[in-house]
């Protein structure tokens, strides 16, 4: 008897609750890191990410499952941008300080060292244009492809390539050269 191909089975139906639970497990940390970088504040980043997942609850899983990652980052970005727009009039950019997202399993001195390097790099990223900074974060912090960045930001892949290239070169100019 010829076995029935497995791909003829209907896709498993999972509840919204299970779908959301899995999405939180998979994406909460990357989203918080991304929102932290945009907002410079882990607590507010958590609020934005909570809001993002609440919005996800309102979507039928079958509508977003295929492009879940892009969907989440897009919504997260939009919410963070809303907050930034709202605060632009009240908070001077110079007053903003990056809040460090502490690394796991590090010894105190390692953690301090990493925190310092992180702070230095973030200060340099601040000197890039907002577009450059954002695509670099999405590429190097989140490991997204140009295509995924295009879906999130609406920038063309050509533009993204140019921004990342110019941003990397600018960063390289800013980062002190290792004498060794």
């Amino acid at each position, binding site marked *: 008897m010829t076995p029935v191909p497995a791909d003829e089975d209907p896709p498993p139906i999972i509840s919204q609750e299970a779908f*959301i639970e899995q999405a939180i497990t998979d994406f909460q940390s990357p989203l918080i890191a991304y929102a932290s970088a945009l907002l410079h504040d882990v607590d507010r980043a958590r609020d934005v990410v909570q809001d993002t*997942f*609440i919005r996800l*609850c309102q979507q039928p899983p079958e509508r977003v499952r295929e492009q879940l990652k892009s969907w989440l980052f897009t919504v997260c970005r939009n919410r963070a941008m809303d907050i930034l727009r709202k605060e632009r009039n009240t908070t001077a950019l110079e007053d903003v300080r990056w809040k460090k997202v502490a690394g796991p399993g590090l010894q105190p001195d390692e953690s301090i060292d990493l925190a310092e390097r992180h702070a230095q790099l973030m200060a340099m990223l601040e000197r890039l244009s907002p577009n450059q900074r954002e695509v670099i974060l999405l590429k190097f912090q989140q490991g997204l492809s140009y295509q995924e960045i295009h879906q999130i930001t609406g920038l063309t892949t050509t533009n993204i390539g140019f921004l990342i290239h110019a941003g990397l070169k600018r960063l390289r100019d800013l980062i002190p050269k290792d004498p060794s």
Partner: protein
Amino acid sequence: MKVYPQDPRLTAFLLDELDPAEAHKIREAINTDPALQETLAELKLARADLAESLTFSSSVALLPAQREAIMQEARSVDQNAKITSFARLLQGWKPYGISLAAAAVVALILLLKTNPESKPAPTALARPMPPIPEQVALAPPAPVKPTALPSGNFVNPSATASLTVVENPALPLPMSKVKHGLALITQAIRTERQLPAAASVQLEEILNALPLKLNAITAIARRPKPNWHPDVRETGMSAHAATLGAETLPCPWKPSATLLLVSIRGNATDACQAKMVFHPNPENVSRYRLLGYSASKDNSPAEAPSLLEAGASTTLAIEIESNNSAGDFGTLSWAIDGQPAPTLSVRHVAASEPSDDARFAALICSFSQWLSGGNTGLLDRDLLAALARENGAENLAPERADFLALVREALEIK
């Protein structure tokens, strides 16, 4: 092909973003050009710096309360989906109901024809179609769908889960009449020294037990009054029928949401029928939820109660999930005794300072939801205590001071 150090394809090559053919061309160019090799080396160093510093921690997670708020929302959506499916099932039966009724008519004709004692029905086929059975006709009417149909009670369609604007573009708003809710919870907390049963907490009754005057955008309904003229104001004759106001403020238990407070106050001497409908703006509002009214009494499921007694007021609270932090959240259309009144626009200004009464209303909503264990997002004892502290003041009205004391006493109960 000539490639220059400024060419972004160099970075794309480094990041594996080129298709194989183009990657091959770039690789060949790099192999033959020392300047490109130097640029590539610099790019590699920048990439390494970024990769090291931007590696985020896998331990950064949502707070437990935030995670629980999300899961609560997911569960409520699951529950709503089941109800929607039931409603669709009813709708799905509607055509079958018509067909069955038609079949019944035909069967009746045949029966009458075969019964010699019965008179034939000469115009049987021209008879009007029998009415659709009631259960079938009760498929949820647009735009508001009842979530359940308990016998004889008005049901808030958003009592258990927020509504999507796409599926629910309008929500009739009920008038509140029964105001014993605060007395009941006071008795439980102060006399029985226990928190009241969740099901006994009626948010709308507690909200309307204390007088609130919002710092609101208002609209006034006037009724035709013969002989009325501005000069006769002093005589007590008035054409004023009711005043409607709306104020927004950040939702205390859900940072992403806005709390819309709607207050309607009737004429001091005449009762009226007040009908009010909220039309959320789909461009700015994604979901919304009328707080309370989970099972108010003496009303039919089809219609929101509309009696506004003389001098009485009703305050309603609507939790709004918005796409934007500010803007046009929709309109409130209303009518007094069948006469349309000026539509009120609901605009939320993110930076505006809410009135003291709106803050107090938000505290009442928070407290009621905490007691009822509803969809309360971040709400816990700490947040509630903080909200109560924020509302404290030296010159507080006695009934408000008493309410704050009640909140404190409730928080002390284990």
